């Protein structure tokens, strides 16, 4: 019997291929409660595939995934979300014709066990909660604007806020700063960090910007060709020889200079 009781999330011997492409190569990852973990690696290294397998969008070819000791390998995204794993997307998955306020209203509705067919969704209680969420993510000024008109960073924050409405145990963020201008990245991450502070939350995020990785995570897992090549605290992983060679490319840069 596998001892996974101390881990919030455990991936054991995960393998996944798409034809000849190996997207996960014997991946073993244990995540503890409260950790802020970033997944790094070049494009196609297997970070998003790992995230998609944890959230049920993809099924591993072999291996198992456990959440709170319960196997979730074969569950679909809806059930996994209900169990306490939420995610945001690289390209924000929001409801375009609706306002930011309505997007959060949908998220709130989906988070409830039962919803009345005869009670207005825009009730005072719901409105109060959504206003609080908007405040928390500094989205107040965009509340009643159609989301298709909103700037990239705001859309990212809204996407994350929607994932958080359910009060998950684990929040997976797929490249929260991708597609966001360089000057917007830190304000966005600061807003996000502030919004998540005080939450008893485990955060796993995919990120390419190493400054952001160092500043906002306390553990880094590096992927290369579907395999985990380094896993540990920020300093150790970023100084790892393989990580420098295959992920950050700093060895190569130094060699050239």
């Amino acid at each position, binding site marked *: 019997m596998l001892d996974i009781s101390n881990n919030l999330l455990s991936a054991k011997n995960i393998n996944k291929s798409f034809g000849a492409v190996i997207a996960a190569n014997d991946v073993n990852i244990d995540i503890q409660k409260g950790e802020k973990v970033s997944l790094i690696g070049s494009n196609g290294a297997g970070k998003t595939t790992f995230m998609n397998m944890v*959230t049920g969008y993809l099924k591993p070819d072999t291996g198992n995934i456990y959440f709170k000791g319960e196997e979730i390998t074969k569950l679909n995204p809806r059930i996994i979300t209900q169990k306490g794993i939420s995610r945001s997307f690289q390209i924000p998955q929001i409801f375009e014709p*609706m306002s930011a306020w309505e997007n959060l209203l*949908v998220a709130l509705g*989906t988070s409830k066990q039962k*919803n009345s067919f*005869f009670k207005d969704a825009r009730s005072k209680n719901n409105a109060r909660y959504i206003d609080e969420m908007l405040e928390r993510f500094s989205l107040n000024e965009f509340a009643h604007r159609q989301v298709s008109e909103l700037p990239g960073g705001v859309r990212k924050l809204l996407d994350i806020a929607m994932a958080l409405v359910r009060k998950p145990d684990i929040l997976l963020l797929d490249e929260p700063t991708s597609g966001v201008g360089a000057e917007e990245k830190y304000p966005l991450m600061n807003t996000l960090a502030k919004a998540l502070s005080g939450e008893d939350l485990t955060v796993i995020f995919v990120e390419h910007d190493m400054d952001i990785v160092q500043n906002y995570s306390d553990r880094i897992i590096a992927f290369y060709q579907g395999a985990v090549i380094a896993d540990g605290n920020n300093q150790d992983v970023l100084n790892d020889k393989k990580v420098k060679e295959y992920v950050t490319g700093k060895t190569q840069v130094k060699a050239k200079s």
Partner: protein
Amino acid sequence: MLRNLLNNIIFQSVFLMTTLILMGIFIPNWLVFVVTKAIAYGLVGLGIITLMRGGLVSFGQGFVFGIGGYSAGLLGVHAGLTDAILLLFISFIVTGLVGLIIAPLLARYRDIFFAMLSLAFSMVLYGILIKIDAIGGSDGFVLPESTYFGIKPTTDYADYVLYVVSILVAGFVSILLRYYYNSTPGLIALAVRENELRVEYLGSSAFKVAVLNFTIAAGLGGMGGALNGIALGHIDPEFTYWTTSGEFVFISILAGYLSVPAVFLAALLLELVRSFSGRYFPDTWQLILGVFLILSIIFIPSGIGSFFKNFFDTFSKNKKS
């Protein structure tokens, strides 16, 4: 206070129903009949817009329209059940149950596959109905005259009484649907229409939304079929034919999915165009209808309902300011 009252769904519906019932006293009998038929078609259209709000369109609502009509007719002929209100209710339940049974199959499909599968159901039913001589085959059969709580109205008032009943039924259904559309499940249905995957990732089932909406649409379609059968006093397999289903889609596109009253208005427009075109251009009325639909799509792509929504949105904004 007056604005709150005017914004109230029940007040709006009761006001509209009362106005229409009073108007029925003064309008000619042929128009009373046309409005009753429009309500029958509008009920089916309401079902389709309920589906549309969840991102689905059925090309085969003739299936439930026919089942509803035949249920009412067969109960009238063979069980002696002639109470119109009871027949409408039973048809709603019967077709709702049929919808609930086939919905899990249909809800696995999306877009054109859903539409064509629903159409296939209606055509299979059409094929069966025209072959069963015991229920009139392709000629159908005549329904007994309707009663209301045991009272049979005189011929002069029969159409008007059915008109009143149809308005009350349509009003009641409209109130319930507007509550549903404004509720959290109604809002989630709209979200499914936009991004099904995200709804699943938020922890809700798009499949369940599709099953629920199809079941509602089936019930309403059946009720519409029963009302149409009672109004005509006759039922035949044409109820389930694909052109009939096409008319329901026409109504839904013309109305759009943003407003409930717009569906009945669209159905009334269809009936009026059909009546006038049939009278003055008997061989080309479909042409007129086609041109009418093209113009509607070009000039009001979101349907008549967008006018209603814009009006109420403006009204609400004025109220807030």
